[in-house]
Structures are given as structure tokens and as C-alpha cells.
């Protein structure tokens, strides 16, 4: 009886593994139609939205770093001060509040003395 049951169990595990593999195969890339629609939306708004927030109440940088260079709630010298921001505190997607000078691209912020 155990022989039958163990065979059935092995088959069940094999089916689960195949199903999981198929799921990964099917969903390992975003749907192209959705990507085209997302590109159309970004064209309409001129490219907006980049981070983990969908609104501006907590931290504009986390909505889109194009709207600001540092988090408003960043407390600077306090250790782990950026974690006080509920936007930056979402550790999974947050951007480190860092000035554009530190980015790999060429300097983006430039001080121009007043004439």
C-alpha cells in the first residue's frame, strides 16, 4: 500500500515542480502589451514615477527623484536618520537620499553665482 502511496506522492511532487517551473517560464518577463501601454502613459506625462511611492505626501524623492534631490524627512547627522521617513523606510524599494554629484553620470547640480 505504501509503495502505491509513495509513487503517488512522487508524482504529486513532480507535478508541483513542473507547474512551478512553467509558472516561472511564463511570468519571468513583463507582458509586452503592458509595457507598450506604460510607455504610452509616460509619453503623456513626460516621464513621471520611479520609486516606491504613488503620491507625494511622504517623500517626493521616493515618488520620483526628478522632483527633488533629498528626502524632506532626512535628518542628516542622526544615525539612520533617513529611516524616520515613512517613504524611505520602505526598505525594499527606497532610494538612498544622495545628491546627484555622487551619481555615476556627470554632475547634474551646478552652482551658478548670482551676477
Amino acid at each position: 500500500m505504501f509503495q502505491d502511496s509513495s509513487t503517488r506522492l512522487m508524482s504529486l511532487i513532480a507535478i508541483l515542480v513542473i507547474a512551478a517551473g512553467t509558472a516561472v517560464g511564463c511570468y519571468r518577463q513583463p507582458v509586452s502589451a503592458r509595457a507598450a501601454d506604460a510607455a504610452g502613459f509616460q509619453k503623456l506625462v513626460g516621464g513621471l514615477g520611479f520609486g516606491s511611492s504613488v503620491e507625494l505626501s511622504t517623500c517626493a524623492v521616493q515618488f520620483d527623484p526628478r522632483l527633488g534631490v533629498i528626502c524632506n524627512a532626512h535628518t542628516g547627522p542622526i544615525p539612520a536618520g533617513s529611516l524616520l521617513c515613512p517613504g524611505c523606510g520602505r526598505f525594499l524599494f527606497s532610494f538612498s537620499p544622495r545628491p546627484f554629484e555622487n551619481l555615476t553620470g556627470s554632475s547634474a547640480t551646478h552652482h551658478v553665482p548670482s551676477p
Partner: protein
Amino acid sequence: MSPLLSIARTGSAAILLSPLRSTVTVLAVVAVLVPYLVGIGMVEGLRQEARIAIGVGTPAGEELLPDLYVAANQFGRRVPIPLILAEAIGKFDGVTRVVPRIVGRITLGKDNVEAVLVGMPREELHRQGSTVQQLTRLVDGELPGSRHGEGPQLVIGSGLARKLNLEVGAVLPPIFRSDGGEKTPRVTGIFQSDISPWQSRMILTTFESAADIFGQQELATDLLVFCRRGQPEAIRSRILQSIPGPSTERATSLQPSVTSRTDLESLLPAGLGHREGVFNLLFVVAFAVGILVILVTSGFGRSGRRREIGVLKATGWQTDEILVRSLSESMLLGLASAAIAILVALVWLEWLNGFWIAGIFLTGVETQPAFQVPYVLAAQPAALAALVACLLVTTGSAYSTWRAAVTSPAEAMR
């Protein structure tokens, strides 16, 4: 069948001998793996969306998104940029056009629902709208076309529409008072829920209406600069050197800030990658705790298991054969757990649309997201999950099995 394979096959029989222990082990591993797979799936999905939002991978010669974003700083903070600078930048060699944009925070309704108001010039909206193949796939309704002084026409996000119970054609209570009296905003369209997560709380209107709503004429949040191919870096330098010019009195104290696609692209690994690393680190701790959990759960039916191993040893099984049998059992349990975790993660993200968990990871998202949560079920985290599941179960049960296997059959069966 080789003797080793025959022994390994008895591993599946061993799972059935202690069903409670096997079930608890699988549940413990699934509980650890599912949030990991869901989180990593969402971070990958958002990374793809962010790449689209900055125009990475745009075919050469196709003008989709601006090359440069020019903003102004004062006292180290972002401030509005005067529209007069748009005219100056537009005259630079290599600049094809400059589009001013307003992005601001407003609240709506008696519950003060947060929204992001975006104002784009009317001509630009209709120009871009005409280039989109199927506008109805983006917006249910029409694009706004309101002029200065008219009642604002709005396209609102799917999240706002659901929260405020608004439909196309609905009117909102006046949200500003202009010189000509109160103006009643009207909803001309609603963004489709599956186009982007950032549309959820967005309100799109014309630049003129946005300026009326905020009461800021002749100012913009940023200037979107479209350049000829290969020109952005030179134009960026020129903007930084020559803006503001001596003739722009109001702009003399402003520091221009120019953001290019390269800058934004470098934020993806810097931001998402760093934080993703922290997330992974946290799950290393969770996996370590998982080993202890499995260690404890392997104590379920321990006396029965000791007796079972004692009987096996009494019937001639060697210690290494018992360990192979246990390893086979652990691998099967690990594989089953990983497969179940992947399928549960898929169900949670695809059919339940990240119910509750999307609100944990994304700020401003309701328990039931009003947009299609972006995700990618990549092969790498799935393979890692399978490996970790096998390691978890094997590590958690190997010690107790070995302790029972090295004792004498008489002692084990007592």
C-alpha cells in the same frame, strides 16, 4: 534500479510515515519563502516600470521621453522654475523643443485624499495623445483641453476614481478660486488601472489649469528638454553654464539642476539594488530562523522516528543508508515546499493582485490596490528559493536523524 536509488526512493515513503511532521515542515518553509518571492517579484516588476518611466531602451531616432529635466534650486531645495528660461533653453542649438510641466501635491474630498496633480501644455497633451496607438488603452474618456480661466478638465487615476467614487463626466467641488470666481473641475477621463502604478493617485490636466489650481502663473516645476541625438550632454553643460542669464532678473538667484537619463539609470542599481540587498540580508536571517524552526519541528514524532530508524538498523540498514534516505526525504520536502511557495506567490501577485502585501512595500497603496501590481517571477530567485528550501529542510532534520542513526538499534527502539 541501483541500490542507492532504491534507498532514495524510500524517502517518499518516509514522508508518509510522519505526515504531521512533513506538513508542518512544508508550511514552515512556505511561510518563509512566499514573502521573499513576492517581495523580489515586485522589486523586479517595479524596476521594469522604472526603466520604461525613464525611457531606457527607447529605439534610436524615436522621440518618446525628454532627454533632460531642468529644475531650479534655491537654498538647496527645489523651487519653481520661471517659464522665461524655457524660451532661452529652446534657442540652444540641438534642442528640438522645451515643454514646461507642473507637478504638485493636492488633497481632494472631505477625507483629504492625497493626489499628484500633473499639468502638461494642452498642445503637448494632444500631440502625444495622437501618437499613442490606442488612447483608449490608456484613458477611459478624453484628454483634458481646458484653457486658462476655464473650469479644469481632469483625467484622474484609477485609485482616486475608486476612492472618491468618480466616473467620467463627474464634477468635483471647486478646488481653487481664481480671479473669475470658483471653477468647477470636471472629470473627462480615468486612467486604465493596468498601465502604471504611478497613475493611481495622479490627476492629469492642462498646464494652464494646473497653474490656475496652484495660483502660480509663469512658473513650472520643471522643463522637459528634447534634444537631437548625441546632443544631451553638450546641452546640459550649456544650460548649467549659461542659465540663468543676466537678463532674467527673477532667475538670478536660482541654481539650475539638470537630470539626464544616465543619472536616473544610475539610480536604479544605486537605490533598488542597495535596498534589495538589505531585503535579501533580512531574509538570510529569516532562513536562519527557519532552520531552527525545522529543527524543532523535526522533534514532532521523534520517538516514533527513533523507533523507525532502530527497526531499519535492526533489519540491516547501515548509518549511511539511513542518512541517504533522510536526505532524499528532505530534498523531496524542500522541492515540494519551493514549488508550492512559487505557486502561492504567483497566485498572490497575479490573481489576488498583491492584496495587502503591495501596501506594505509601496507607499500610498490601499489594501486592495487600484492598479495592476507590477511583478516579474524571475528564474534566479525561484532557483534560489528551491535551493534554500532544500538546504533548510536538510539542515533542520539532518542532526536529529544522525543522532538516531548512530545509536544502537536496541537503544533506538526503546
